[in-house]
């Protein structure tokens, strides 16, 4: 069948739906049918799903003369989605097309939500088209005889590749692709990505280093969506809180927006805010009851599915949600988006904005709700970013040994692997292109000996090395443990929340559950619950009696930082505050606060670098304002504190947000000394960063995830906590043990390199210091905390840095008791 005939089949399907294929769809069909690999650059809701499902099916038609009769058995194409919530939508699209074209193909979903019986059925008979997640794909690689499953697979599509790119799930995907490309040398690989700053690199990472770039294409949808950004402003700015709250003071304005739209999504950044907003809306506006819902990652999936369907069926007026609704699923009825608090990035903001006005040609409306006054500046900066299309890069991981170790264990629990064969594949990935033979050997030794050499009396057992060189895990117990732990998303250990009478409500983190006493009331899943008991990793609850006071479940979500682009825009906005003729609505609203800031200190101009000092009950504060995003500030703060501490013994507590950072000490310290000694210099920056205690603290936190991913920690079996108790240990403890006894362990080293590259953003730190070196430093001695400083100094999540001895520090400290 010629390409033209095939494409006409695709077009005829579109005609029967009364659609017209977009140019980018046709372009993708053609490229695919020519056997090319490629990256499709298209936003959510643009028709990207049919851009790739169609040619996959057309390719099947081309290869099977009797394509309308019985299809040859076996998997033909895989569609990877990062969010299992999206799988249903993708399946429906595929089924619509198959039904219309009267093809005998089956479509199946395999995710963490798929039942065991369904998975077993799939194993004996794979669907023709499989929709799955990166984790579930790894799990397939962990089954015996997995090569047979993929043998006849023709294509793999990695949807939302931008979501995976800057994460370890992306690395996991790179490794899986490297394996699949050996099993099926002609496998066609396609990615789909929304707009990111580094699209070309996204393409490179997807295809690995062995692919000839000429054989891959980039198809761009070029759909410019209109997005209107509006800030929700209070009547009186004087009452705006200085420091981050939940933004509930603007509840009434939000209720107005809800009333005025068919459906509104209220996005919060963390689950606790989501719970609180839901509760407060319901209490103040009981008329929304029955038409409002909540959606976040800890709520049971039945409830989440129900919510998603209810949105589609226009049954809901408002849904309070978190990033769990960021992706995919087209919700046509959504007219307005409310973003509570800073989204921290342009890409995420665009993504959320795009959840409204989904029909082509419709405008997306997004309302920004600043939870504290200074956040309004971000709204102004975001609007500019949207206009200019400035979207962040997603920086891919390099040398993620933890993911590699997990992957090799995965291959070892299925059929085993021969290191030389796998080395070539691993080396072909973007992530591991620079891996050395030595590092590779280190990893193999780690898998087999649990150290770098075989030692007497040692009983380490994981991967066995056969005489012919095959590396395999034979212990069924070890294999089961490994399969349970496949994945690269590490959360706190979670406990399921259940009614005494039996119903499952969702899961909460162990750290929160452990703070609850029987009889305590807490809000979860929009319900007021009372703790009855915690038993076998289950939180047993009953409905709380009316009128009891409640805690809100808190989650330790990741903290995000501003990108370089966003920081630049933010600085521009701040400087604009001194030019009253160019003020945006937000900056105008902030005038009250700017006035106070000017009275107590200054608003820096583009050529000025502001440092404020003041004393409070807590000690001596110095607040610096580079406006570079919190990660860079974290690095800068620790280097500065470290350099200061070299001059004389002193202990600092550090705090930072996206605007600036603070050094706080119980001793008085002089900024003059800091400037005279040129402590903001870029020389020896790497050594100083490494020396600052802070790097160790941060590496400790990075190590937590690394240890879990690499399988150094057993996260336990659900409901079987007791049996595995002797195998549980904290990752903090592990970090100490490795630091003391195996400092050159690659996983420990990785914790440090991740700290420098991904957390401290050393490269950006250098650029920032160079910029500051050109600025005029303005030191303001203030009488009290200024409006700019307030959100920083009240941050409770702090780092410390000290050059005093432990004993000296202990002498100054106290342990406190409750009376």
């Amino acid at each position, binding site marked *: 069948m010629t390409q033209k005939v095939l494409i006409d089949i695709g077009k005829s399907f579109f005609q029967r739906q009364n659609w017209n294929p977009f140019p980018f769809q046709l372009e993708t069909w053609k490229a695919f049918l020519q056997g090319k690999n490629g990256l499709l650059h298209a936003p959510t809701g643009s028709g990207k799903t049919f851009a790739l499902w169609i040619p996959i099916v057309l390719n099947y038609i081309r290869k099977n003369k009797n394509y309308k009769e019985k299809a040859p058995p076996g998997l033909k194409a895989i569609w990877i989605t990062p969010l299992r919530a999206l799988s249903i939508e993708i399946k429906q699209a595929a089924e619509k097309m198959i039904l219309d074209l009267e093809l005998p193909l089956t479509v199946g979903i395999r995710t963490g939500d798929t039942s065991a019986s369904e998975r077993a059925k799939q194993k004996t008979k794979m669907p023709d088209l499989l929709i799955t997640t990166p984790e579930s794909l790894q799990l397939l690689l962990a089954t015996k005889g997995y090569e047979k499953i993929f043998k006849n697979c023709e294509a793999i599509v990695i949807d939302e590749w931008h979501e995976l790119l800057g994460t370890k799930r992306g690395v996991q995907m790179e490794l899986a692709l490297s394996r699949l490309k050996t099993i099926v040398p002609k496998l066609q690989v396609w990615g789909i990505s929304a707009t990111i700053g580094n699209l070309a690199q996204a393409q490179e990472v997807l295809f690995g280093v062995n692919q000839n770039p000429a054989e891959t294409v980039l198809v761009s949808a070029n759909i410019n969506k209109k997005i209107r950004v509006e800030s929700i402003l209070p009547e009186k700015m004087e009452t705006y809180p200085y420091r981050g709250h939940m933004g509930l003071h603007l509840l009434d304005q939000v209720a107005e927006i809800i009333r005025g739209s068919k459906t509104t999504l209220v996005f919060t950044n963390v689950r606790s805010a989501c719970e609180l907003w839901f509760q407060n809306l319901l209490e103040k506006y009981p008329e929304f009851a029955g038409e409002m819902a909540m959606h976040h990652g800890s709520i049971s999936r039945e409830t989440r599915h129900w919510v998603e369907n209810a949105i589609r069926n226009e049954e809901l007026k408002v849904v309070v949600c978190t990033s769990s609704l960021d992706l995919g699923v087209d919700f046509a009825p959504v007219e307005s988006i409310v973003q509570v608090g800073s989204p921290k990035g342009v890409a995420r903001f665009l993504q959320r904005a795009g959840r409204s006005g989904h029909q082509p040609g419709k405008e997306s409306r997004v309302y920004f709700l600043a939870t504290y006054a200074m956040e309004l500046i971000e709204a102004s900066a975001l609007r500019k970013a949207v206009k200019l299309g400035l979207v962040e890069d997603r920086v891919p991981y390099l040398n993620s040994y933890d993911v590699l170790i997990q992957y090799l264990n995965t291959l070892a629990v299925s059929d085993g692997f021969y290191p030389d064969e796998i080395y070539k594949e691993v080396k072909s990935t973007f992530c591991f292109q620079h891996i050395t033979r030595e590092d590779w050997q280190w990893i193999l030794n780690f898998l087999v000996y649990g150290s770098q050499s075989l030692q007497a009396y040692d009983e380490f057992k994981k991967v066995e090395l056969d005489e012919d060189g095959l590396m395999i895990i034979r212990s069924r117990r070890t294999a089961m443990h490994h399969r349970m732990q496949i994945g690269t998303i590490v959360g706190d250990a979670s406990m399921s929340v259940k009614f005494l009478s039996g119903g499952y409500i969702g899961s909460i983190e162990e750290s929160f559950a452990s703070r609850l006493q029987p009889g305590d009331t807490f809000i979860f899943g929009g319900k007021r619950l009372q703790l009855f008991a915690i038993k076998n990793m289950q939180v047993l609850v009953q409905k709380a009696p009316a009128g009891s006071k409640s805690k809100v479940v808190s989650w330790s979500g990741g903290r995000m930082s501003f990108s370089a682009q966003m920081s630049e825009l933010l600085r521009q906005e701040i400087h604009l505050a001194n030019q009253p003729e160019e003020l945006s609505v937000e900056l105008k609203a902030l005038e009250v606060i700017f006035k106070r800031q000017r009275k107590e200190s200054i608003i820096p101009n583009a050529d000025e670098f502001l440092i404020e000092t003041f004393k409070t009950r807590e000690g001596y504060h110095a607040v610096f304002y580079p406006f570079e995003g919190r990660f860079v500030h974290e690095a800068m703060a620790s280097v500065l504190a470290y350099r200061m501490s070299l001059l004389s013994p002193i202990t*600092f507590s550090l705090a930072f947000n996206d605007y600036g950072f603070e050094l*706080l000490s119980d001793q008085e310290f002089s900024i003059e000394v800091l400037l005279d000694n040129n402590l903001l210099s870029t020389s020896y920056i790497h050594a100083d960063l490494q020396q600052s205690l802070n790097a160790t603290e941060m590496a400790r936190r990075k190590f937590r995830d690394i240890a879990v991913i690499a399988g150094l920690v057993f996260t336990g079996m659900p409901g079987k906590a007791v049996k595995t108790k002797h195998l549980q240990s904290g990752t903090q403890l592990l970090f100490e043990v490795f630091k003391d006894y195996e400092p050159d362990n690659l996983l420990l080293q990785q914790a440090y390199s991740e700290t420098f590259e991904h957390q401290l953003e050393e490269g950006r730190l250098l650029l920032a210091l160079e910029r500051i070196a050109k600025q005029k430093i303005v030191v303001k001695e203030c009488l009290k905390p200024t409006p700019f400083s307030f959100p920083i100094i009240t941050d409770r999540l702090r780092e*410390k840095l000290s050059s005093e001895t432990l004993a000296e520090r202990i002498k100054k400290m106290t342990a406190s*008791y*409750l009376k």
Partner: protein
Amino acid sequence: MTLETTINDQLFTMHSSGALFWNEKNTLLIADVHLGKVTHFRKNGFAIPNDALHKNFEKLIDVVDFFKASTILFLGDLFHSTKNSEWDLFIEWSKQCTCELVLIAGNHDIIDAKNYESNGIEVVDYIRMDDFLLTHHPTEVEGMFNFSGHIHPGIVLRGLGRGHLKLPCFFQRKNQMILPAFGAFTGLGIMKLQEGDVIFAVTNEEVVQIKMSEK
């Protein structure tokens, strides 16, 4: 390296290793060594550094040598789990050690007592000496002072400038003292303090009494 304290007219020396020396009885009290834990993990495929297990024996040798004690009373959780190759290292150490060894069995001590007894190590549930009661789990008995382990007591210290520090400690309340875990691969249980508690924090080099304040 050490700090002395008097309890019921007896002199006790706290050592920065976490051991407690009873001067009048020439006896060392050691809690929660968790021998075999590293190997137990390794056997199950968790690559904890092998060197960590030798640290426990080094510490034992050093502290016995320091006090020249005649008896060691282990306050439970001497072994983390079932027997493994560390058992042989332990027996080797016990043969070279000149002290009399007694184990007050803890919840982790699931190795049959016969194995200890055949090597000359006594295993008991608790010990009463004068008006002192030695147990694994903290236990309150009228008129007795209780030494115990099990908890792995730790403490969070706070200072000005919002600094904080987490350290293992000797934890004393009314008629009891809980010893810190001696083992190199053990975690901390952070204590909730009350007025009147006495805390001796343990660093690598020192034992320091902690100032208390009301929250």
